[in-house]
């Protein structure tokens, strides 16, 4: 049968959260990725260092230099001057990051060239005067040379023979083929060695369109060309460096500026540069890890000024020490805030371009890389699934507190671990997704629990005023006014004033005027002006006093007592016994104090009622059984067994007349605060064991041995009561059923419904002994089912844990009598009694010793 589900199961909620995050992870959903980037930047700062290698120096075109040398752009001769100085100082590689795509425009130079040309033409036309023009042409030629900065620059390049110049590409996929062929000086820069593990990977390299290169004159004299294209992330932060790009998508790979700097520095030949499709570039002996698009993650070594700046003006003025540049990679670039390109990086908001170039070169030189290991994606996926399972399955079961601790621990573990491997090894693991999984998942499950349980939070405590009011109303509805009043009294008067008033009226209807009055007075104590109670109270108080005692006595003794009391004159009898008064109510029926007029002896008369739906034939059979049992119990004549005198039947009631006992049952001595002294308890149990032995020999089993069925008389004698009767009355209960008391004393075979013999009594006696010594039962349970299970299957706890002073011999008696298998117990009560007595003797000896 399907059950309706009113709530979303926790695992479903957790599953949905997991799936959503997995989806976002799979498609690298930008909003989450951007947060991951922030985490990346934080971690990137951990990898900065104070010490960079000394292979790189930056010659900066800075504010100071511009101040001194004039407005930018400078005549290119300045560049040439700088290069000459640096080259003389012995630099290994010079990276000039300024692109000169067009020849320098100089009006003066143009004029001189035009002038020269026209004079040349004139000279040709007037051959006779040619020698006259020669010096002019010479002077013009010199001036031209002086002004031809491009040539000057190209000469410097040629002289230094180790300069790298930049190119720029138009990024993006372009259909079609390039316009014209590239000149050889450019072509020689393309990477030739390409490994091709899988064709598919080729599609991932960034494609470009047209190239913007320096002028031909300069290109011819460069050592190498490298591109200066940047690939910032969507948030504008430059974390990746494009090591190479694919020119027009023709699988022609052009390297980056920084790559060329390092390749030149290391004197690499073209064959020393290998490209692995799918990721990875080999530069000489160094393997640079990249992704499939040949992007290398830049490990920023520091913020601005990580490398020393040498203002170019100082360089040109020979103000810089030569060993500043000796053997180094010197990068010339714009650091001027307004002029140069400022790049946003994880470690600094603005970094001048030369520094970024230097950073990349440094990374390659010292192999300080940040990578995303091939197993990173798998690890992240595994973590996601693991955490997803955690929040869906474990979290709901553990509850808010415990799972918070575990989730926090996992979080710390992941974050610390991720940060550590980043800082120490440069591994970039995406930490955001697992973190989110834990955080979101936890929040989702816990808030769901909170919201749903909130609905049921409004639970009434059993003793709350609300409950008392409800019970009061119930009792009132059932006509149990006293109980109703008791409940209403526990509520604030204001809450139940109406109900109290109605209760007062009910009392009045029952002619219980003084009670009604006290109800109104209770209201009056807080609300004296409520309705008409002010006038009612005095009237009722007056009425209450004139009540005749007869009706007032209605509650005491009279109608509640017994069906036997008919009138005031007749003396009630049962059989030949006079009924004096009621002694109490037992489980089976009322017990009366009676008198045997023949011998003038006071007796206890136990009555038994078969008031249930008993068939006349069955009733007869039951009665026969009852008398038989009573008779056999009557045969028992033992000082420690209650003596049965007589049984009979009168007015459809069966009765047993027995010895009147003046004392209390042993239940009173079963709490820790009120235990027998140990010796006394053992003594009593030994006595009972003897009595049981006697009964068993008469083939009578008690079946209900427990403290309540053992009496300690005022005279100090111990008597066992209720022999055999227990069985009869059980079977006399038919369809209405009887509520079972706790079977704490029942033996395993009794609980299983099997036939029982004397040894079952001895088990119950063992339980009783335990309880008298320890103040606790050997078998307890929250429900009857658990209790039954324990009695049948689990060993009892040692009584020593409740009472350390129990001697070993007694413990052994207890253990033996509580054996689950009857064959392992005492077979006869006599044996048990003997062992107990021996233990007693031992106790005496130790006491006196």
């Amino acid at each position, binding site marked *: 049968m399907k059950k309706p589900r*009113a709530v979303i199961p926790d695992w479903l909620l957790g599953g949905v959260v997991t799936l959503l995050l997995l989806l976002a992870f799979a498609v690298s959903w930008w909003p989450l990725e951007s947060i991951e980037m922030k985490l990346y930047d934080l971690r990137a700062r951990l990898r900065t260092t104070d010490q960079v290698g000394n292979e790189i120096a930056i010659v900066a075109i800075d504010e100071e230099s511009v101040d001194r040398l004039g407005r930018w752009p400078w005549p290119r001769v300045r560049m040439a001057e700088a290069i000459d100085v640096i080259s003389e100082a012995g630099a290994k590689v010079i990276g000039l990051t300024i692109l000169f795509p067009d020849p320098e425009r100089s009006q003066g130079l143009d004029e001189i060239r035009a002038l020269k040309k026209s004079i040349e033409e004139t000279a040709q036309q007037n051959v006779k005067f040619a020698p006259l023009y020669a010096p002019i042409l010479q002077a013009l030629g010199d001036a031209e040379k002086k002004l031809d900065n491009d040539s000057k620059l190209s000469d410097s390049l040629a002289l230094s023979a180790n300069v790298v110049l930049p190119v720029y590409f138009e990024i993006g996929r372009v259909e079609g083929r390039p316009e014209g062929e590239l000149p050889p000086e450019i072509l020689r820069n393309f990477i030739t060695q390409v490994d091709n593990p899988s064709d598919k990977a080729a599609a991932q390299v960034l494609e470009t369109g047209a190239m913007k290169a320096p002028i031909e004159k300069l290109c011819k004299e460069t050592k190498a060309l490298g591109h200066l294209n940047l690939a910032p992330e969507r948030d504008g932060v430059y974390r990746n460096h494009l090591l190479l790009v694919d020119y027009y998508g023709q699988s022609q790979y052009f390297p980056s500026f920084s790559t060329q700097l390092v390749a030149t520095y290391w004197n690499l030949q073209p064959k020393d540069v290998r490209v692995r499709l799918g990721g990875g570039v080999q530069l000489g002996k160094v393997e640079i890890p990249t992704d499939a698009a040949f992007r290398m993650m830049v490990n920023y070594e520091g913020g601005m000024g990580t490398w020393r700046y040498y203002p170019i003006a100082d360089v040109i003025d020979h103000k810089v020490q030569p060993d500043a540049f000796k053997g180094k990679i010197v990068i010339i670039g714009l650091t001027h805030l307004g002029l140069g390109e400022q790049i946003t990086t994880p470690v600094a908001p603005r970094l001048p371009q030369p520094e970024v170039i230097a950073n990349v070169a440094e990374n390659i030189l010292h192999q300080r890389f940040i990578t995303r290991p091939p197993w990173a994606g798998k690890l992240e996926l595994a973590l996601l699934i693991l955490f997803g399972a955690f929040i869906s399955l474990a979290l709901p079961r553990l509850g808010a507190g415990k799972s918070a601790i575990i989730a926090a621990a996992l979080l710390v573990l992941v974050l610390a671990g991720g940060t550590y491997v980043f800082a120490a090894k440069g591994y970039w693991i995406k930490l955001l997704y697992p973190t989110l999984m834990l955080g979101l998942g936890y929040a989702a499950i816990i808030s769901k629990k909170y919201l749903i349980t909130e609905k049921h939070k409004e639970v009434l405590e059993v003793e709350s005023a609300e409950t008392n009011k409800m019970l009061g109303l*119930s009792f009132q509805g*059932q006509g149990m006014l006293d109980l109703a009043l008791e409940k209403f009294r526990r509520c604030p008067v204001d809450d139940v004033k109406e109900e109290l008033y109605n209760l007062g009226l009910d009392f009045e209807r029952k002619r219980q005027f003084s009670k009604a009055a006290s109800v109104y007075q209770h209201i009056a104590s807080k609300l004296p002006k409520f309705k008409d109670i002010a006038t009612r109270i005095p009237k009722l108080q007056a009425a209450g006093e004139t009540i005749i005692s007869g009706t007032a006595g209605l509650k005491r003794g009279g109608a509640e007592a017994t069906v036997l009391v008919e009138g005031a004159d007749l003396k009630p009898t049962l059989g030949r016994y006079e009924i004096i008064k009621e002694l109490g109510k037992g489980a089976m029926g009322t017990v009366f104090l009676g008198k045997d007029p023949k011998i003038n002896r006071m007796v206890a008369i136990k009555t038994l009622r078969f008031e249930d739906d008993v068939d006349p034939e069955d009733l007869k059979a039951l009665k026969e059984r009852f008398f038989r049992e009573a008779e056999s119990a009557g045969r028992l004549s033992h000082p420690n067994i209650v003596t049965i005198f007589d049984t009979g039947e009168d007015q459809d009631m069966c009765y047993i007349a027995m010895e009147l006992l003046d004392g209390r049952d042993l239940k009173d001595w079963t709490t820790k605060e009120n235990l027998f002294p140990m010796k006394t308890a053992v003594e009593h149990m030994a006595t009972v064991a003897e009595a049981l032995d006697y009964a068993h020999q008469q083939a009578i089993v008690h079946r209900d041995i427990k403290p309540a069925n053992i009496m300690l008389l005022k005279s100090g004698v111990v008597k066992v009561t209720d022999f055999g009767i227990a069985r009869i009355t059980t079977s006399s209960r038919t369809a209405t059923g009887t509520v079972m008391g706790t079977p704490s004393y029942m033996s395993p075979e009794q609980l299983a419904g099997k036939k029982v013999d004397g040894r079952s009594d001895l088990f119950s006696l063992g339980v009783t002994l335990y309880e008298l010594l320890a103040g606790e039962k050997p078998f307890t349970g929250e429900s009857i089912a658990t209790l039954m299970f324990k009695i049948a299957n689990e060993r009892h706890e040692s009584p020593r844990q409740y009472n350390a002073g129990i001697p070993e011999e007694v413990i052994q008696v207890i253990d033996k009598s509580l054996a689950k298998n009857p064959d392992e117990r005492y077979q006869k009560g006599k044996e048990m009694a003997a062992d107990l007595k021996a233990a007693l003797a031992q106790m005496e000896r130790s006491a006196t010793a």
Partner: protein
Amino acid sequence: MRLRILQSESAAAPQTRDVFAASAPGLDVAARTDVGRRRANNEDNFSVVPELGLFVLSDGMGGEAAGELASKITVEEIPRHMKEAARDGPAVMGEANPQFSTLTNHLAGAIRRSNRVIWEAAQHHASQRGMGATVVAAVLRQPVLSVAHVGDSRIYLLRNGELQQLTQDHSLVMEQVRRGLITREEAEHSDMANIIIRALGAEETVKVDLDEVYVMPGDHVVLCSDGLTKMVPDG
């Protein structure tokens, strides 16, 4: 859907005492209690509140007057509580079980309330000591039937000719059967067949067994006390 409350119907049917028949939209109700051939009086009681879809059956025990009183309290207090709950409050008496709906929880609270009333009354009046009652109650809010019980009275669902017992008796012999100590056959003939291990009025608090089931048009639901189940076998 038909809902029938049957109590201690015996094979031959003399002295039918109470007969109840009613209709609510989509609901036919019939109830009958029968003294039976043996008893002199009847400690069974029932009540039906069609507008709430509430059905209560209780079997009292502990002596004639006491038994009748216990079952009377039960069948009166449970409807009272359910009416109050429908009117006022979200609060449930006793511990709420989040697996079940608020309505089912209110039914449990109603049963706990009557348990409390019976128990206190028994403590208070010597003649009522030992009185108790079983109860089986159901609330129908289409298409869900909320079922609650304490004791050995039962609810059956009859669907497409198949009879299914929805409740588990809280009797000693049933516990033995559940534990595999005896078979159902032996249980029915056991000496201890009448001993109940959970009842209203036995202790200050009581644990109520709850269930929710879907019901469909054409279903028969039968509430009955043990008199019937003894007389009429499951087949």
